[in-house]
């Protein structure tokens, strides 16, 4: 491209000296011609929303005259993100044009894992899939098919498989991520937190980050609001065994001993209650179970918590007092990925209780209420009921697990054990099961026991090599998805996802795959719309907005009712609990035989010579999904393992050395670079998740850095909702020769 431009310039020079004279006259003031390969006349701008992570920021895509998406920019009209876009959002074009993308349907020819495939047509592929589904239904029942979806594109496939008759749909965002907090806050306030979390950061006077490294995990609008809050003078408490970016801005950094967060939370509650710093009026008006709570935390003083958390009692007291002074405008960030130690629902409960004590739920500067947006639906036939029930344990073994999102690891277990009934096939859609679910060695065994694995994906990630059938999905820039409705924003909105260009190669959108499959399975009745535009129109019907406006602007916002004083009759009761109030004491938990008020249980300690493996995010990557992205790889090609100066010195390690991490079960990682730092406790080793991928087809990502998932051979499962606590693995660095 640059050659073409310079050649053009060259020829133009020979002819154009006259025109040059005019240019010379204005040379000093006017801008020089723009460099790079984007000199084409802009032709079209299309509004859509991003899917480089799950925040779905508004995006405007610019398409040049020759049909190339030349850049992505934040959509200034988007009510939540207002034109801002993170590194991953900006790098969407590198996904779109990644030469390693899955291009056509493939059928396995070699052994599972060899990655040998032959190219087939969509007709052939869909026939294979439909046949498989029919066969399994006949022989084992539709419940034998497990569905592993993720993201908004999965909606249509989800409908299809539900119509097909399997209840076993499992998303990692529940049992590997937000599940515990959604359950904990549901138990306390009567509604789950949802995504985006309804945090009024801009108006906060104090923000408490406990196990959140906001700043390194980036959600565009949440960062904007966080930064705004800070710039308005909000104080910040960062509780983290590592000196995160947030910690570097914090007024208080509490380098807590991992696994002791509940103790800290109980101590905070103790101080707030003992010193009368909690919001008495609010608690009296809206909560039940205060007496039980007060009695429960009476013994959990900061002095009690000090040896447990390794935090000075004075610091615990000081930060509690700061919260008390700032209430109710305190955001206790509920965290996002919160599956750590297996008691995570209880920890979420503690955070919810703390939030309630501060009076910040439904108040300015705290957490706000979602406002539902009316949504249109087609009349669909009834979905078949299953008398076999779910296989993943949601609702039974894990009584509080969401039956909508399911328990991924539960389904893996069922596949391995054949109990409660055999699982014969998996359909994986936009989920990277070998990366998102811990104990990947188990997941792999489960896959090998399957009759059939179908993977629908955009990139040839590790799991693709194990699939029997691979279907290339179009990227988010090339397809319609179901419109996104966000209730948990101060101004709730609907956002459209529409194709910017036609799908490249033979990739197809999820809705098309679902509909084609529906035809073959006789389930067309569940898709009574001919085009996704029709589906869009129906969805937005009750919103009384103009679909053209929506498709032009990208998103339309509605009036929200975020605070208690905004709530109307229709919003009552304020809190959807059994009692209709905030349940500080949870009878529901008591009835299940669990602790009605959170208790601290010490986590297992690392054996001598080992460090606890903790992990997190980097702002330029999304989980294990972006490591092959040319732009993002350029910003961060591999991860590092953070080690404190002292253990590093003892092991003879210098900054920049390469080590392999060996876990307590003997699993060894790929070599990874060491970062020696004062900014982490000496009993932990920290890595960014998502590296160390092995797929030969990911030419940039392959074998770069080390995989934390691979080292997670142990999990501590939360008995209430099935979440896999992952911070229970211990590693020791072994110097690479």
């Amino acid at each position: 491209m640059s050659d073409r431009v310079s050649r053009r310039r060259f020829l133009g020079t020979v002819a154009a000296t006259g025109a040059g004279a005019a240019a010379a006259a204005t040379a000093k003031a006017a801008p020089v011609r723009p460099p790079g390969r984007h000199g084409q006349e802009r032709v079209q701008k299309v509004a859509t929303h991003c899917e480089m992570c799950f925040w779905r920021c508004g995006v405007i895509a610019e398409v040049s005259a020759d049909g190339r998406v030349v850049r992505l920019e934040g959509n200034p009209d988007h009510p939540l993100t207002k034109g801002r876009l993170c590194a991953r959002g900006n790098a969407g074009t590198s996904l779109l044009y990644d030469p390693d993308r899955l291009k056509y349907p493939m059928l396995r020819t070699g052994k599972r894992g060899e990655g040998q495939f032959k190219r087939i047509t969509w007709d052939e592929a869909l026939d294979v899939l439909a046949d498989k589904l029919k066969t399994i239904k006949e022989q084992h029942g539709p419940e034998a098919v497990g569905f592993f979806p993720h993201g908004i594109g999965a909606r249509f496939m989800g409908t299809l498989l539900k119509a097909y008759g399997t209840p076993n749909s499992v998303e990692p965002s529940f049992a590997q991520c937000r599940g515990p907090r959604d359950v904990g806050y549901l138990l306390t306030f009567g509604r789950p937190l949802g995504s985006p979390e309804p945090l009024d950061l801009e108006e906060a006077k104090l923000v408490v980050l406990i196990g959140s490294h906001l700043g390194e995990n980036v959600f565009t609008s949440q960062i904007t609001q966080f930064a705004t809050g800070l710039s308005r003078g909000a104080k910040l408490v960062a509780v983290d065994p590592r000196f995160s970016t947030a910690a570097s801005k914090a007024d208080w950094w509490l380098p807590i001993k991992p696994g002791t967060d509940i103790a800290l939370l109980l101590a905070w509650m103790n101080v707030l209650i003992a010193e009368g710093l909690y919001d008495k009026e609010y608690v009296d008006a809206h909560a039940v179970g205060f007496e039980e709570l007060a009695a429960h935390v009476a013994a959990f003083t900061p002095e009690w918590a000090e040896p447990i958390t390794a935090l000075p009692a004075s610091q615990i007291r000081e930060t509690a007092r700061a919260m008390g002074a700032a209430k109710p405008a305190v955001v206790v960030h509920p965290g996002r990925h919160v599956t750590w130690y297996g008691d995570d629902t209880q920890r979420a409960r503690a955070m919810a209780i703390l939030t309630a004590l501060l009076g910040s739920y439904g108040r300015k500067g705290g957490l706000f209420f979602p406002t539902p947006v009316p949504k249109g639906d087609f009349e669909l036939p009834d979905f078949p009921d299953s008398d076999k029930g779910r296989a993943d344990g949601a609702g039974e073994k894990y009584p509080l697990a969401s039956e909508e999102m399911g328990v991924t690891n539960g389904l893996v277990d069922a596949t391995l054990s054949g109990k409660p009934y055999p699982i014969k096939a998996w359909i994986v859609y936009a989920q990277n099961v070998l990366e998102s679910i811990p104990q990947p060695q188990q997941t792999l065994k489960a896959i090998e026991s399957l009759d059939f694995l179908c993977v629908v994906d955009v990139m040839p990630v590790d799991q693709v090599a194990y699939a029997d059938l691979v279907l290339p999905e179009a990227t988010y820039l090339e397809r319609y998805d179901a419109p996104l409705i966000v209730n948990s924003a101060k101004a709730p909105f609907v956002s459209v996802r529409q194709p910017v260009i036609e799908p490249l190669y033979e990739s197809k959108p999820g809705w098309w795959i679902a509909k084609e499959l529906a035809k073959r399975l006789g389930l067309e009745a569940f898709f009574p719309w001919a085009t996704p535009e029709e589906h869009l129109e129906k969805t937005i019907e009750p919103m009384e907005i103009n679909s053209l406006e929506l498709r032009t602007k990208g998103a339309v916002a509605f009036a929200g009712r975020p605070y208690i004083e905004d709530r109307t009759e229709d919003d009552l009761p304020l809190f959807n609990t059994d009692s209709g109030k905030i349940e500080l004491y949870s009878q529901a938990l008591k009835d299940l035989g669990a602790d009605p008020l959170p208790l601290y249980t010490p986590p297992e300690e690392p054996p001598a010579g080992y460090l606890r493996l903790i992990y997190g995010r980097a702002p330029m990557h999304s989980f294990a999904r972006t490591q092959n992205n040319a732009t993002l790889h350029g910003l961060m090609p591999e991860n590092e393992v953070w080690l404190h100066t002292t253990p590093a010195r003892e092991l003879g390690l210098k900054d920049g050395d390469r080590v392999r991490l060996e876990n307590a079960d003997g699993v060894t990682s790929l070599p990874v670079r060491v970062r020696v730092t004062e900014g982490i406790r000496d009993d932990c080793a920290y890595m960014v998740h998502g590296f160390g991928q092995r797929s030969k087809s990911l030419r940039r990502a392959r074998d770069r850095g080390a995989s934390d998932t691979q080292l997670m051979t142990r999990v501590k499962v939360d008995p209430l909702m099935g979440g896999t606590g992952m911070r229970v693995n211990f590693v020791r660095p072994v110097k690479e020769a």
Partner: protein
Amino acid sequence: MKTSEIPLTPVPLTSELAEAMLQRQIKKHHVAIMLLHWFNAFVWLFELLTGLALITSPLFRVVPEWYVSIVEGAFGSRANMLQFHIALGVAWIVVFLVYGVFGVRTYLSQEVLKKEVALDHDDFRWLVVRTLRILGRSDEPLPPQGIYNAGQKLFAFVIYAMIPVVMLTGVVMAFRLFSPAIVGWAVVLHFAAVGVVVSGLMVHVYMGAVFPEEKPAFFSMITGNVHELFAYSHHFKWWREMKLEEREWDEQHDAAAAPPPEGPPESVGPPR
């Protein structure tokens, strides 16, 4: 002319002989070399004009700012000026390459280089005597010279040595070859080589176009010929070679040839 009649060193000529020689033209340069010479002159003129204007940095500039502005204005923009400089330079290189490939025997053989570029004993003495004569410090006659005198040979040497440097560094810069570090050095070397040539060029242009005694030399680059008297007086060794060749040729055709023409007279004063 008989062997004995072709002198070993320049001797004085009779006025009739001198007159005859004045009328007789000897071919000194063939068309190809003349074309190349003027092409070169044209290229160097415009490359210098633009090249000097291309250096704007006060650290390296050798012309006044107003000069840079004028040339820039003539081209419309600096980018245009650079493109022109490169285009002309590339054309220059291409032409030279063609000449180099097809004329390797004519221009680059050891024999030719020895005759036209290498300095011999006479040449070194000529340089000394010539300088002293300019300073009015000597009346000694100049030693006989070959087809090119020592001064011209020196200049030829400079050209042969510097032109490849100018070309190579020019190409390196124009196409940004190898590495930026190499390009950074190429600029300096390009400037240095051009500077050396320009020094020699000043003498060359003066001698060729201004100095009246060398006027025949100037015209020889247009007509291709010099009159024999000029050859005899300024490039005796070359004149002698030509004569010997002529006679050899004549002797080969002696059978059918008429009686040989009158030889040169016995003694003529040395040419001035």
